[in-house]
């Protein structure tokens, strides 16, 4: 492994981080928009958002990515910049999973809170903004953390479409040197460190959000507890399963 190849891999980290941040931002917007729409009073909004979630959770992220890359330019004549297509694919897919987290978080707020908002004649928007979400968001953060790690892992898919992220650069380095073991162990380690950092940031956010409504986060125990990146009590990826709600 020469210095140039390592440098290429480090440039790949930057692409992976960018992709993760952009698609997480898009995914968060989609998740909140679709997740709140699913609790709407209007049946058409509920139906459309339910349909969105069913479709995007039902299909595979990679298949959708290929579809955006190869079918959309032919069928509709739009050619995306590769980074944009990848961001769109990841954001829309993981946003659908996020929508279920948002819906679940909103549903978990005690009904009396909503009723109190109605009694005080808050508008629906004020209720959501001032009463429901401040209490729902801290509950959503641990599952969002899991989803974010799934998203980070999902960014590796873009290497199959030629976007030079960590996995793609690793593939090039392997072709150049043939040192598969070193290279792949190194980049698996990089992904692990990235996942660990993401978890730290999310824990911090959770602590802040909980402090904002006067709660303390649960303690994590021991060395294995520190190592445990995903909040596993909440049955991690079960929500990632099918299209049904």
């Amino acid at each position: 492994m020469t210095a140039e190849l390592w440098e290429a891999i480090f440039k790949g980290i930057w692409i992976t981080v960018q992709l993760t941040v952009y698609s997480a931002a898009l995914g968060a917007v989609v998740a909140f928009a679709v997740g709140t729409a699913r609790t709407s009073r209007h049946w058409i909004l509920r139906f459309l958002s339910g349909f969105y979630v069913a479709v995007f959770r039902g299909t595979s992220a990679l298949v959708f990515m290929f579809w955006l890359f190869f079918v959309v330019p032919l069928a509709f004549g739009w050619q995306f910049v590769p980074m944009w297509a990848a961001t769109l694919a990841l954001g829309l897919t993981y946003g659908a999973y996020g929508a279920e987290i948002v819906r679940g978080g909103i549903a978990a707020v005690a009904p009396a809170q909503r009723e109190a908002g109605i009694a005080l004649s808050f508008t629906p928007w004020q209720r959501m903004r001032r009463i429901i979400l401040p209490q729902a968001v801290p509950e959503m953060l641990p599952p969002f953390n899991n989803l974010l790690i799934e998203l980070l892992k999902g960014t590796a898919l873009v290497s199959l479409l030629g976007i030079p992220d960590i996995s793609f650069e690793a593939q090039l380095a392997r072709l150049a040197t043939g040192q598969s073991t070193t290279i792949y162990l190194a980049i698996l380690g990089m992904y692990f460190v990235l996942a660990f950092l993401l978890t730290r940031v999310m824990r911090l956010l959770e602590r802040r959000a909980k402090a904002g409504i006067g709660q303390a986060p649960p303690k994590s125990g021991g060395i294995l507890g520190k190592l445990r990146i995903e909040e596993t009590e909440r049955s991690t990826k079960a929500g990632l399963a099918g299209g049904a709600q």
Partner: protein
Amino acid sequence: MNWNWSVVDEFMPYFWDGVRVTLQATALGSLLSFALGLVWALLLRTPSRFVRWPVGFFVEFIRNTPLLVQLFFLFYVLPEWGVQTSALATGIIGIGLHYSTYTAEVYRAGIEGVPAGQWEAARALSLPRGRTWGAVILPQAIRRVVPALGNYVIALLKDTPMLLGIGVLEMLNQARQFGAQTFQYIEPYTIVGIAFILISYPASLFMRYLERRLVH
């Protein structure tokens, strides 16, 4: 949008070949993940921390790194170690290993969900360790975890397209090959996308039904 049904007709034989491989990878990968996951779950309950910590680290490491890179690792590194397997077998091992780290959590939750009275009763009847696990704890734990395991089967199914990275001809790769040969991309990719929804949506409805039947 110019949809051409004759292309669909041409693609269909390849599509069915792809479906067969996808379902095969899903079925065998799931079985492997069920078995390995139980192994991890039991090892994580051993009293010795010299077993628990390495296994815990291994499981966390696998779970928090991308499946695609793990597949590349297995595909390119195993032959260097003298293990020769087909791409599909490598894919099944990779995907089964990856998902076993998720099923291990499911089993853990299932085992912890068995009431303490069951352990005490087994003890009071002086059942040996093997019988306690085999006849008392696991049958109750596994019943609870069936729907959660089923959901992972669906998630695993949706990750099988990654096997194209190591050259397995599953559904998506069939569509890609077909596109590369005929320059017809619209129909094959759309069909594969719809096929995933058609398989996974009813499957997830079925899991919800199972959840109502078995857990509550």
